[in-house]
């Protein structure tokens, strides 16, 4: 790799022109057909009329070319300070590599969907070849140092504008992506979104955005909430997509609750889904379903509270004996607990004991919520937009998620949160500081369980029926995977991780059989290249990466005189003895 780079870097000058040529080929390819038949990638068969996915390919080629052209101009004309704001060479390399990945995935998707490479039209080939040329040539460019755009002093309004633009793009991308029926098109688009974020990070723009986000927390939170709130209006009353979105929110809310247990307190809970299930079963048995086994039907807000308490109680019950064991043992015990819960729910069918859950049949026909005269099952028209059943639940779930996030953030900042982090870092030292280790662990466990129970009570009504087989071990594993993928102990990261893990299987039904294999691979790749998660804690990341080298140098510089004096002291004692 490095010898290849050395070889290439001798050709940095010509490489720029070769790379530019490759980028132009990629752009031209967008105007040529990619596939022989319209069935693949939402029809990419026209001459001169690129589809949206082809325009995205064009965009990557264009960014490559723009970076290649602008980089020498910037180097020649701009002051050294301005020049260092962006890293256009890195941007060119990233954009060209992204182009290659994107074109290749598009070509593979076409070939798979239509049956063989023979179905690829010249545009697809030209795109792959052009991108490959550009990707190889741009490797010869001088990589340079990190872009400094993140340190550029920016007025608050510009930062907020940046946040709003980014979130608007996220909304448009989410609306468009959810609307894609074709699996190949969905994969290609999803890949494009990931690649685009990566290219922006390499150029230095992502750094600016995260700095802006860090400086304007409340604006970010407000804007995110508004974007999430208006999302149903982009779906033209499509209940299919809104049901997926509601599923994502349930998953995210549960993951956020687990984030307290795993991310803050550091307790690996592999049976967390049981608490969601306990909440769902509680809500189901208290609902007005004809199959509900209890005759009591309190109003839903109270059911929510009861569901939370039942889960919390279960948390205390399982936590008080097991939280004295730590690490791997806790994982094993909670894993077993998750299974015990599922089997118990299966067995509470009245054949040998009380009938509470109706066994493996579960409790079906749970009616829609009717809170304060608002029926969640009815469609509405708001400002000309159709708002269906799932959109109603989506908003309710958004509220629940917001509540859980508020709890999480406040706990994280509080004295209790600090105690949890201390336990996670070093349990014995925390104990020596006067942290009530067992008590705090139990609180994390029961608190997390309470939040899952609340989420479960809504889930029961969204899903209409509650059965034990919805709460299997794999679901717990996915929750943990979502947290690890996004960034343990963060809010944004866990939301992103949960969205990815829930969205992919919903949209990609065809790879159901390989789902676990792919997630396994995804996690391995993550652990290798970005162990801190997709959106890690900003402060912690800084402490781990940015300052390491600088501090190591400083420490070395200080250590040298220390050694010198130590040496002098040693020789002095020797002389004394002599």
């Amino acid at each position, binding site marked *: 790799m490095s010898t290849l780079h050395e070889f290439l870097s001798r050709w940095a000058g010509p490489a720029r022109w070769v790379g530019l040529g490759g980028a132009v080929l990629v752009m031209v390819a967008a105007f040529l057909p990619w596939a022989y038949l319209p069935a693949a990638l939402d029809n990419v068969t026209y001459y001169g009329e690129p589809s949206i996915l082809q325009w995205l390919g064009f965009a990557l080629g264009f960014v490559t070319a723009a970076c290649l052209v602008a980089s020498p101009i910037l180097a020649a004309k701009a002051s050294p300070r301005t020049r260092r704001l962006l890293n256009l060479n890195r941007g060119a390399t990233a954009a060209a590599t992204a182009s290659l990945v994107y074109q290749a995935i598009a070509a593979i998707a076409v070939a798979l969907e239509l049956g063989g490479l023979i179905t690829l039209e010249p545009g697809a080939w030209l795109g792959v070849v052009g991108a490959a040329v550009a990707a190889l040539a741009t490797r010869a460019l001088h990589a340079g140092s990190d872009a400094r755009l993140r340190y550029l002093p920016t007025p608050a309004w510009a930062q907020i504008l940046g946040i709003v633009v980014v979130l608007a793009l996220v909304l448009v991308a989410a609306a468009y992506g959810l609307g894609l029926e074709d699996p190949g098109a969905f994969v290609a688009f999803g890949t494009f979104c990931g690649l685009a974020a990566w290219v922006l990070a390499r150029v230095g723009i992502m750094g600016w955005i995260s700095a802006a986000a860090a400086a304007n927390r409340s604006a970010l939170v407000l804007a995110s909430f508004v974007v999430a709130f208006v999302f149903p209006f982009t779906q033209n009353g499509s209940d299919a997509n809104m049901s997926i979105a509601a599923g994502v929110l349930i998953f995210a809310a549960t993951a956020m609750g687990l984030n307290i247990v795993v991310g803050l307190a550091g307790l690996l809970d592999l049976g967390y889904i049981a608490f969601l299930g306990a909440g769902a079963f509680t809500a189901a048995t208290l609902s007005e379903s004809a199959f509900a086994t209890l005759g009591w039907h309190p109003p839903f807000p109270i059911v929510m509270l009861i569901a939370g308490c039942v889960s919390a109680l279960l948390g205390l019950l399982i936590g008080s004996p097991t939280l004295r064991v730590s690490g791997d043992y806790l994982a094993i015990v909670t894993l077993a607990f998750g299974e015990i819960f599922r089997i118990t729910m299966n067995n509470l069918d009245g054949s040998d004991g009380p009938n509470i859950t109706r066994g493996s049949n579960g409790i079906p026909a749970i009616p829609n919520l009717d809170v304060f005269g608002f029926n969640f099952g009815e469609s509405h028209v708001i400002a000309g937009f159709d708002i269906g059943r799932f959109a109603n639940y989506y908003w309710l779930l958004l509220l629940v998620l917001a509540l859980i996030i508020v709890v999480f953030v406040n706990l994280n900042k509080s004295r209790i949160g600090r105690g949890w*982090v201390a336990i996670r870092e070093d349990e014995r030292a925390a104990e020596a500081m006067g942290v009530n280790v067992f008590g705090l662990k139990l609180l994390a466990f029961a608190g997390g369980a309470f939040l899952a129970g609340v989420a479960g009570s809504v889930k029961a009504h969204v899903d209409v029926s509650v059965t034990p087989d919805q709460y299997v071990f794999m679901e717990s594993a996915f929750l943990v995977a979502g947290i690890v993928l996004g960034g343990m102990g963060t809010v944004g990261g866990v939301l992103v991780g949960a969205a990815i893990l829930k969205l992919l299987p919903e949209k990609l039904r065809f790879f159901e059989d390989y789902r676990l294999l792919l997630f396994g691979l995804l996690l391995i790749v993550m652990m290798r290249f970005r162990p801190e998660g997709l959106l890690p804690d900003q402060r912690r990341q800084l402490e781990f990466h940015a300052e390491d080298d600088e501090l190591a140098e400083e420490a070395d510089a200080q250590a040298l005189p*220390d050694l010198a004096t130590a040496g002098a002291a040693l020789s002095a004692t020797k002389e004394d003895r002599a």
Partner: protein
Amino acid sequence: MLEVKDLAVSYGRVQAVKGISFTVEQGQIVSLLGTNGAGKTTTLRTISGLLRPTSGEVLFEGKRIDTVPAHQIVTLGIAHSPEGRRLFPRMSVEDNLLLGAYTRRDAAGIREDLDRAYALFPVLGERRGQAAGLFSGGEQQMLAIARAMMSRPRLLMLDEPSMGLSPIMTTTIMNTIAELKASGTTILLVEQNAQAALALSDRGYVLEVGAITLSDTGAALLEDDRVRRTYLGVD
């Protein structure tokens, strides 16, 4: 202030401390000396409630504390800066200090003590937002002491504060300990660096394989032949 009576502690079948007794008077610095495995750290961990004695008593200000859980002992007024410093390396300096004050609820008083810690150790104040693990050994020791002081203890127990430090840093830390004494804190010090510890101490106890073999004032122990031979490397 602190009275340890016939204290015995075991790890399973291995008896680490075999019935030792000593006292720490208000305002004193008392040192426990001895080689590795003599039982010094075990003694401190038992006083702070992290270990339970098999027999014997620990009395603090006249009350028995050997059955009190660890997290309540801090509230009683004993702070323990454990062996190897045991900072929270990935948390910031400020968070480490705030954890030292975990048992306290008076926000204003904590703020005041934070400022005092930063005044005592300016290097901590300058880099209060940085992760504790990025500091040098001496700076980490300062942080460990500052963190222990954040609970406003009446008795401060320090386990090998000079471990792994350069001679200059050791001197700095020992001067800090003397300052803490001057400001009214009682200190129970565990050290392998007998010279440095005894020079500060009002009283010293020498532990060998779990039992106290010598005890005297610090100055007297510094002159004692056996101490000089075994711990000070003087023939």
